[in-house]
């Protein structure tokens, strides 16, 4: 049986290689894209179809304790959306937070082949890696929540920067993460220690460690730069969801100077107005700053109307959401590493704040001058489930559809937004950038997001249709590592992707500093903490020495 494949006559959109709708063949051998294959190669006729690299989700929540809490919290959501087994695939349940198998299959049915979970405390790494292993089809990885780690904050406070670098490298090795995630820096300890306490300003020093969020962000950027991490610190800024928070967001970006920084779900951090009052849009101010600073990348975190689930390491923001819903919610504590909040939420068109959030996300997309750095996400499932991606693509590509949707939502909110004035329609090439090439580039994944020779053969083939929601909702073929997993809209095989992680070098002597902290404050012994390689199953590490 041949392991060669040729996709013929497809209209190829591969912006990383400057190919914009050119009809050409794509050749695949041994899971990689190659120059040519033999005449015996299996063929897929993609005439009339659009060919893109597989989608890359830079920011979602698909595995780990918080995801499982959300699953357990919403049995009704699962009961109403069964995901039956097929001849080739396993069963599960869907809803806003699908079960592991359904998550992988549903990503595949949208043409996505890679996804990164955006917030995992290292203490949960084993659980996460096992769940990721059970998430079929896609390649995956996760960002380790380190920003509020007590030991690391202590090092920052004491100015022990070299030890901080070694400790972060040790932690990323120990938990098999992909980069450092910083969530509401400096906010965890005040929140855990005193009712409703949080840091409100990027320069506010916490009572606990006498360091500010800016100190933490700056230290992590320094370390990430020194270690050469493929993806810079992935920052969830302070004051998420509060009116007037855009100033904090801009100050966070200024902290980076000219060093690389990624701002997560920036829509949730783009609100003007006064604290405690209805928000106003600061989408323009935020996007102008990002446009002008090539060292900054961000994902949008678009809100879509309907059911979602807030799940975050930012426990105070989940508490705030619970104040709106008056329904079931969860707050949890992860020892020395993080907090956590989960709250089901329903974004509704007629609610001013929800409609404005929706409009701000679209403003950011439509005012973006560099789609390579302002990339696609709904912070699934916080802004919306990843299953809403096709509708979001249609909103970006179809001005008439966008106008129809604008007419249906809260008009008071629309009057506070410039969305009506924005005429831009994304092209297929730009969609390929924000959903594939851009996220892959932001993540430093050289073999993902494009169709050049040597790239992973993760390919999606769509029927070209006028209705872009329909088009992106059901690819005709999804090829994962050279194998057609979906053919003619049906699963043809099951496939388990790999885990992607990094292995930064560190000085072993740092363990002598970390070990006593475990003895004193952790519920797990130091020697049992680091995750062994067999939890990785099929995996790939990104070599930090290769630039």
């Amino acid at each position, binding site marked *: 049986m041949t392991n060669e494949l040729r996709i013929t006559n497809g209209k190829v959109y591969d912006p990383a290689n400057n190919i914009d709708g050119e009809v050409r063949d794509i050749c695949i051998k041994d899971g990689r894209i190659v120059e040519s294959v033999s005449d015996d190669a299996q063929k897929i006729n993609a005439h009339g179809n659009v060919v893109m690299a597989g989608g890359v989700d830079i920011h979602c929540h698909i595995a780990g304790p918080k995801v499982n809490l959300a699953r357990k*919290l*919403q*049995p*009704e*959501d699962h*009961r109403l959306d069964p995901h039956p087994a097929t001849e080739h695939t396993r069963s599960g349940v869907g809803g806003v937070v699908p079960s592991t198998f359904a998550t992988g299959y549903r990503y595949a049915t949208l043409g996505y082949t890679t996804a990164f979970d955006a917030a995992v405390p290292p203490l949960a790494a084993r659980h996460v890696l096992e769940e990721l292993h059970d998430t079929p089809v896609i390649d995956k990885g996760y960002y380790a929540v380190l920003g509020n780690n007590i030991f690391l904050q202590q090092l920052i406070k004491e100015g022990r920067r070299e030890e901080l670098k070694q400790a972060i490298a040790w932690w990323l090795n120990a938990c098999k993460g992909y980069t450092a995630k910083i969530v509401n820096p400096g906010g965890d300890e005040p929140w855990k220690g005193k009712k409703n306490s949080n840091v409100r300003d990027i320069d506010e020093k916490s009572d606990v460690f006498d360091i500010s969020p800016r100190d933490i962000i700056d230290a992590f950027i320094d370390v990430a730069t020194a270690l050469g991490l493929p993806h810079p610190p992935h920052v969830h800024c302070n004051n998420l969801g509060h009116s007037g928070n855009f100033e904090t967001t801009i100050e966070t970006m200024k902290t980076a100077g000219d060093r690389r920084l990624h701002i997560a779900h920036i829509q949730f951090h783009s609100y003007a107005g006064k604290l405690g009052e209805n928000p106003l849009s600061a989408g323009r101010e935020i996007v102008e700053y990002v446009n002008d600073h090539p060292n900054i990348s961000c994902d949008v975190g678009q809100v879509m109307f309907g059911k979602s689930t807030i799940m975050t390491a930012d426990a105070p923001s989940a508490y705030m959401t619970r104040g709106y819903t008056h*329904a*079931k919610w969860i707050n949890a504590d992860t020892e020395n590493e993080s907090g956590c909040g989960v709250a089901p939420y329903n974004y509704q068109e007629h609610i001013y704040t929800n409609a404005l959030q929706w409009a701000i996300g679209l403003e950011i997309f439509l005012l973006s001058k560099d789609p390579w750095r302002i990339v696609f996400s709904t912070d699934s499932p916080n802004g919306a489930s990843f299953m809403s991606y096709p509708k979001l693509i249609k909103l970006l590509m179809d001005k008439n559809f966008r106008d129809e949707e604008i007419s249906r939502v809260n008009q008071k909110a629309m009057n506070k937004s410039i969305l009506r004035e924005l005429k831009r329609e994304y092209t297929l090439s730009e969609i390929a950038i924000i959903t594939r090439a851009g996220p892959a580039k932001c993540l430093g994944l050289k073999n993902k997001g494009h169709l050049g020779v040597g790239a992973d053969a993760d390919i999606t083939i769509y029927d070209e249709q006028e209705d872009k929601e329909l088009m992106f909702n059901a690819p005709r073929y999804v090829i994962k590592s050279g194998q057609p997993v979906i053919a003619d809209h049906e699963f043809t095989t099951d496939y388990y992707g790999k885990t992607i992680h990094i292995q930064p070098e560190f000085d072993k002597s740092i363990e002598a500093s970390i070990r006593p902290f475990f003895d004193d404050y952790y519920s797990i012994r130091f020697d049992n903490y680091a995750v062994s390689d067999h939890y990785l199953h099929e995996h790939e590490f990104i070599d930090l020495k290769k630039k």
Partner: protein
Amino acid sequence: MSLKLNLHTQSNVPLEMSCINPDAIQHLSQSGVERLEIIHGNDTAHLGDFFSVKGKGQETIHIEGDCAAIKYIGAGMSNGKVVVDGNVGMHLGCGMTGGQIIVNGNAGDWVGPEMSGGRIVINGNAGHMVGAAYRGHSAGVQGGEIFIHGNAKNEVGSAMRRGLIAIGGNAGDFTGVNLLAGSVIVLGEMGIRAGAGMKRGTIVSFSDTEVLPTFEFACTYHPVFLRFYLMHLRKNGFQIDDRFVNGRYDRWSGDSIELNRGELLIFKR
């Protein structure tokens, strides 16, 4: 002429038969009904493996036999009538939006969960969770009527949002727990913690009951609306003495751990 289903083979594991539903059956031939797929334990089987089928599918389905191990009869039905001469299993009429189910026997747990219309009449006893919300859901019954002429067990009308549930006999603990709105009328005795966590709605009891400390006594009065409700129940076969129709009731407001807009009406002897 109605469609008659006679149980000829008892299953030793539960059957799930949401296909016993006028919407699904009324346009099928006799053989079509026999071939309807059902869930037998963790496998599939056909309706004809357990039932003999007579007549042609029309609006009424008449079932004979002890169906206590058969779940989901009438689930999701929107019109027509299902009459069961015998016991029925769990999840009877779950999610139904219209039509009528009459059971001349006892029912299992979960009678009419999350129904939004229609009527279920049990001329016997019912299990736990009559007219309740499934676990996790914030709202249970959204409309319709459930009449139990015998006793019911715990959590009658849990998280009910609209509609009427009447229990001719006694109800178990947590009657009307988390009630959002709607009415639960118990002609017999209620167990402990009736109305715990209720936001709005009415729970009526003809017998003294232990009121939770989070309820506050409001007044003793004759609620006009209740007379109409009780007359309606009389017309539907409930034996209700005139003293209950014309009598006075203690009104307790609660539950104060929630909105405190619900009411517990206890007959004043």
